[in-house]
């Protein structure tokens, strides 16, 4: 179980989260939706302890990530798998070595066993044949799946996915969707999928949280969230992908004419 309690986070003068509460139950896939730049990646970084909130608490099981010391944090991270937005594979290592990396770093397994585990993990994402390739030789979809295999290498209890569907063709998207769901159900994980792809997220999530403007504007099962659109114009705009609405109100504080040096004649 992962919990955020009244979390505030700001970058400079820009408030990213303004007193946000979230709960991510074990065994479920939770999709966190929101327009670009609403702090979805920041949410994952808060859970992973890479950034700390200005106030509020981030709890993973009973560990308070927002206060944890380095050792406790590293112990916690060993139980987490993170799929980064661009895969973040180590470019100097082959796919197989990438998957073996966390195993070699955190276990004393012998090489023969590591090889077997790597093959199993790669088989699970359909990349066994690509084990000797370098990341540069992979397509975007393959790289994402290789990174997924690496994230799963240590059999984590928590999986964090950062925009897993961005830039994927329909087939790799389908493969990824099925993998995320299957891995979660097979291993009883807590999965958090951060994305702005509404239909994909709604199709696999048990729970959906929609954030915009530093607060939660919708939460519940996919059906519940769809039903909440009537009460929240921003939610309706985001789910419908409407061009006009509260979400794209101009961020500029001064009128355009002032920036152009026009008008303001007194």
């Amino acid at each position, binding site marked *: 179980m992962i919990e955020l309690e009244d979390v505030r986070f700001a970058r400079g003068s820009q408030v990213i989260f303004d007193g946000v509460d979230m709960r991510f139950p074990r065994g479920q896939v939770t999709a966190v939706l929101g327009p670009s730049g609403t702090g979805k990646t920041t949410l994952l970084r808060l859970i*992973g302890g*890479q950034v700390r909130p200005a106030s509020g608490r981030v709890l993973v099981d009973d560990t308070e990530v927002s206060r944890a010391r380095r050792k406790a944090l*590293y*112990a916690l*991270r*060993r139980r*987490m798998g*993170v799929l*980064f*937005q*661009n895969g*973040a*594979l*180590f*470019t100097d290592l082959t796919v197989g070595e990438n998957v073996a*990396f*966390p195993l070699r*770093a*955190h276990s004393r397994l012998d090489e023969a066993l590591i090889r077997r585990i790597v093959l199993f993990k790669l088989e699970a994402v359909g990349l066994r044949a690509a084990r000797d390739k370098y990341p540069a030789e992979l397509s975007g979809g393959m790289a994402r799946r290789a990174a997924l295999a690496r994230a799963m290498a240590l059999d984590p209890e928590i999986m964090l996915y950062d925009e897993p569907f961005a830039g994927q063709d329909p087939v790799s998207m389908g493969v990824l969707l099925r993998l995320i769901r299957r891995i979660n159900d097979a291993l009883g994980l807590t999965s958090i999928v951060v994305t702005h792809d509404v239909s994909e997220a709604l199709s696999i999530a048990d729970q959906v949280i929609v954030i915009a403007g530093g607060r939660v504007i919708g939460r519940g099962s996919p059906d519940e969230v769809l039903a909440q659109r009537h009460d929240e114009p921003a939610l309706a705009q985001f789910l419908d992908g409407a061009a006009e609405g509260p979400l794209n109100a101009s961020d500029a504080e001064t009128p355009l004419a002032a920036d152009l040096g026009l008008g303001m004649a007194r």
Partner: protein
Amino acid sequence: MNRFIDPVARLGRLVIGGVRHAGAMALFAIELAWVLIPSWARPRDIAQQVYAAGVLSLVIILVAGGFVGLVLGLQGYNILSNFNASESLGVMVALSLVRELGPVVAALLFAGRAGSAITAEIALMKTTEQLAALEMMAVDPLRRVIGPRFWGAMISVPLLAALFSLVGIIGGYLIGVVVLGVDQASYWGQIAEQMEAWDDVGGGAIKSVAFGAVIALIAVYEGYTAEPTASGMARATTQTVVLSSLAVLGLDFVMTAFMFGA
């Protein structure tokens, strides 16, 4: 009014920026110091970095050392023969190389060839989230990535400087003895007689160890703190070459003053 104050303000900003940079680097150095010994837990990583930074710099170092030796032989012969002292050519070439040119020129070449590469590699790993991925895998990037690269550079520089001097002395020999006809026995004999193991060779060695540490620190720091953008990476690699070159030359003066001054 602004015409007078602006340049002062700009100078002030520059100084404050410089001090802040130096302070940040010092804090980074302290953090790095903690992982330098633990980095040896994976000696293979360090060996790989010695290969990448040192062995791959061999060609440029050996060729440059050879040319510097040839030039020293020529110039030295011209000057010394005016005083009928051309038999001292060997010791002149050897001392110039071992005390000064070896450590300094090798360090400058190393900063350009390998220091910039270390910075670029770390900065790219940061830009592509590889360092963040390490952190999220509970692997300390400082210990795993930065430490071995620091050691790789630190170990390589003194060895390269020694080779630079050696090749330079052979270059001086080729020009002086083989081409210009200086007596072979006095070329080597004077070197053996007049060079002090501790003062000259030791002094040069201490210098190149210090240069190695400074270049290694600047290279890894600039890479680690690079802005994760294309222009940020470009700036970081340039900074590494500029800062290390200036640091090496400045430090060389200070160390020379302490070792050989008065």
